[in-house]
């Protein structure tokens, strides 16, 4: 029953044929009933397997277990980095000239810079997994902004963008890169997006990247570094980042 073209039909089905060959095979399909039947069987198999697979999901227990393991690995990574730094500064002991120290501080900053974003991703994931996502539930900047005062090292831009599809749910304070970062929690459809803000000298802002599927988008306003994190699509993150940056610009200008 199988036609000699059977492997090529499979390759066509798997979208592995270059366009020219795919067209040739389509012509063959018009004439060969066996290959048409094969194609139909392949499609039905795939659909069947997809449906069955969708019924299989990781348990909540597994999700919690993996989150905990990742958080532990993150902590271990941080303390290793601290040890490395202590070692270097100890070894230097002031024996090296100022130029060397400057170079090292620069290198250290280089190494630490990506780390802050990784921390943001890890903290976002563990906040989603736990129940400490929101410490202060409010969409009003009159409530939320004063709440951050004294709790966080920065006074973040607090704005609700419900009309744009990004309602503000609330905020929390979290230790990040040695300071108390302000975290704003936004909803966007089924996604939770968070904005971490912490004090950081103006400098090269880390490039956008993705950690464990979570997108990270950082920017700098004055001496505050902000990073938006979430599993929504890039354009949706960029839109919220744009709204926040515009608000920051407005607030920075004295009336």
């Amino acid at each position, binding site marked *: 029953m199988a036609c000699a073209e059977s492997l090529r039909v*499979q390759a066509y089905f798997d979208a592995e044929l270059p366009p020219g060959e795919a067209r040739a095979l389509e012509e063959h399909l018009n004439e060969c009933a066996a290959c048409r039947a094969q194609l139909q*069987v392949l499609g039905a198999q795939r659909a069947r397997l997809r449906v069955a697979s*969708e019924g*299989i999901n990781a348990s909540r227990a*597994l999700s919690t277990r993996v989150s905990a393991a*990742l958080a532990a690995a993150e902590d271990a990574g941080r303390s290793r980095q601290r040890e490395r730094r202590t070692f270097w500064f100890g070894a230097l002991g002031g024996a090296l000239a100022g130029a060397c120290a400057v170079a090292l501080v620069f290198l250290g900053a280089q190494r630490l810079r990506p780390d802050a974003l990784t921390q943001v991703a890890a903290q976002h994931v563990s906040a989603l997994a736990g129940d400490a996502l929101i410490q202060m539930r409010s969409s009003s900047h009159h409530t939320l902004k004063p709440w951050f005062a004294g709790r966080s090292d920065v006074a973040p831009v607090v704005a609700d963008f419900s009309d744009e599809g990004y309602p503000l749910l609330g905020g929390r304070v979290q230790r990040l890169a040695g300071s108390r970062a302000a975290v704003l929690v936004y909803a966007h459809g089924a996604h939770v997006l968070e904005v971490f803000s912490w004090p950081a000298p103006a400098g090269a802002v880390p490039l956008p990247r993705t950690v*464990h*599927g979570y997108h990270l988008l950082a920017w700098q306003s004055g001496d505050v570094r902000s990073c938006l994190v979430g599993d929504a699509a890039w354009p949706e993150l960029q839109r919220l980042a744009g709204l926040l940056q515009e608000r920051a610009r407005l607030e920075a200008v004295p009336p």
Partner: protein
Amino acid sequence: MLPHLDAAYRFARWLGNTRADAEDIVQEAMLRAFRAHGALRGEPRPWLLTIVRNCHVDAHRERQRETSGRGALRDEPLAGFGPDPQLAAIQSQGEAQLQRLLGELTPEQREVLALRELAELSYREIAALLTVPIGTVMSRLARAREALQEHWTREPDHGVC
């Protein structure tokens, strides 16, 4: 919650692991992915699934070493969805269904089908991962699909046509 966790677990189950083994493999894979995320090029999902596959191979090798050390059979097949009453009782419907659907495939066939259908890797990517020529990927995949179809037609309630 954790991105791709379901996909990773699903994949580990496709490869023929019991629920408990699949969970261990997924945890190990997520940790490896976490430590190596700097090495990520391209799409995260297929990347993660190939890590799951490697963890699966390692776990299996480990198990084989343990059993062969005790003088058991060396060429023991991959742990399949063997009848385990305790497990069957808690298996969700979807898992039971997949068990029936993939029932008679060899580990090799399951693997190539999972890489193609779940991880959605290209022939070239599968060939690189398994270190076999592309022709072998194509014929192995064809045999897996034929076996699947044969099995489904023989048991009418699983047939697709």
